């Protein structure tokens, strides 16, 4: 409908804006402005300098949905790059994404994923199914494979409330975009082995939300005990993990007052000191 020569008029919508039938922002961006894609440009040769890495994320199912939690530390080699980093984000109203790996790329990826889901919602007037969201994330991670092979891998954990099934679900990914649905609980990042061991002992079917939040915080605590790249709850600076629940009520972040109570209880009963 628009003549090609029309693109010479400054300020008007270029042709890709008016292309019908596409509701994916990522697809639009890949076609129109590929340089804005995370991993959209090839890395120059040479050795990568040190850069912040995000560490441990856990997710577990509970009676009404899923809980996702992440510590606050970003590390850069042996240094602590950031004490208050946030690694858990709402992807949309009914899903959460947590990131481990190269922090800069991961945060870009999350931002793009959030726009992707909202873009679809606005254009189609409907929510993507949870499987649809998980698949879109797969495609994005696959798009980052080039950077991953050069050491900038992003490994997210995705969890959401499936409105069609009425249950929480958890998805993990590998660097090639492979997507795996996890049963019950999962963890990613440097401290994930310790966190998973902790969750294995704490997780039970039908946990309530308070129980699931406590299990998630304890798993991060256990990971921080053993893994120097994972930050434990810092009661002096009042830095607590980011914990969110996703259920039929939507995404809810657990506030710090509740978390400090959880940490206090764990300290009392845990015999960590």
């Amino acid at each position, binding site marked *: *409908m*628009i*003549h090609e*020569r*029309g693109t010479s*008029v*400054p*300020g*008007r*919508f270029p042709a*890709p*804006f*008016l292309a*019908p039938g596409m509701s994916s*922002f990522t697809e*639009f*961006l890949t076609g*129109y*402005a590929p340089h*804005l894609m995370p991993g959209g440009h090839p890395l120059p040769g040479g050795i990568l300098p040190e850069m912040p890495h995000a560490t441990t994320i856990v997710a577990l199912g509970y009676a009404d949905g899923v809980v996702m939690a992440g510590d606050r530390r970003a590390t850069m080699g042996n240094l602590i790059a950031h004490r208050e980093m946030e690694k858990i984000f709402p992807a949309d*109203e*009914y899903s959460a994404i947590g990131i481990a790996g190269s922090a800069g790329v991961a945060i870009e990826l999350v*931002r*793009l994923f959030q*726009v992707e889901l*909202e*873009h679809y*919602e*606005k*254009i189609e*007037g*409907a*929510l993507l199914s949870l499987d649809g969201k998980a698949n879109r994330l797969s495609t994005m991670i696959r798009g980052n494979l080039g950077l991953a092979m050069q050491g900038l891998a992003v490994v997210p954990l995705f969890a959401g*409330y499936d*409105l069609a099934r009425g249950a929480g679900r958890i998805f993990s990914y590998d660097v090639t975009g492979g997507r795996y649905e996890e049963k019950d609980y999962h963890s990613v990042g440097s401290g994930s082995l310790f966190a998973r061991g902790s969750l294995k002992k704490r997780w039970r079917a039908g946990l309530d939300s308070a129980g699931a939040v406590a299990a998630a915080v304890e798993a991060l605590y256990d990971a921080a005990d053993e893994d120097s790249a994972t930050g434990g709850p810092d009661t002096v600076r009042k830095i607590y993990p980011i914990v969110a629940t996703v259920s*039929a*009520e*939507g995404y*809810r972040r657990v506030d710090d007052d509740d978390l400090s109570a959880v940490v206090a209880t764990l300290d009392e009963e845990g015999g960590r000191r």
Partner: protein
Amino acid sequence: MTMPFYVSPEQRYKENADYARRNIARGRPAVVLGYDGGIAFITENPSRSLHKVSEIYDRIGYAAVGKYNEFENLRVAGIRYADLRGYSNDRSDVTARGLANAYAQTLGAVFTESKPLEVELVVAEVGTTPDDDQLFRLSYDGSVSEQGGYVAMGGQADQLTTALAERWRPGLTLSEALTLAVDILGRDPGGGAARELTPAQLEVAVLDRLRPRRAFRRLAGPLLERLLRPDDPTTDVPHTDERRPGLHDTLTGDEGEGPENPEG
């Protein structure tokens, strides 16, 4: 090869304009007007799924009249424009003015080059106070104007604008604004008896100033009925979403139990 007759630009633009105007005037009108808590969009639309009013971005809404496939295409372009800008800069850098300019350039270029787009658009942005609200009206030829407080477009737009000029004033409540819009939309341009428009025939949406981020919500169901009933005390929309799980793009007031969701 046949040589086309020379047609002067004036003649061609006039014909294009007549063509677009005629076709736009055949469609149902739409009204966009400011109220104390935001901006309201009202149009007659029997369809529940083919919308004439839509969300573009956090604080920006869109209303269109004319040819559906053309304004739908422009709506999607606007969403892509806004999302791209917000993604590459920051969410606060997406403005109705920028979007209105892009629409104006596009409509203007198409108007001079080929078949004009048979659409009229409103791009509205809700601000932190009513004085910061912005309403841009765009015509098929790319002309753009900023309107103070209210816009009518589509069939009988002139009569509707005159009626709005008489009766609209700043600080209307939402129910007053909707009642005014429905009243003038139901008028018969031929001077006959006014039609009674029921909520089911209307497409209504608001940009709610008090919402933290995405301000656009459609209104339907019992909530819309209550807002339009003169004897009902409801004057504004709730500023939080309903608890029923699913897409929260529409406020229906159809809830019944429980307190309102505290976090929206």
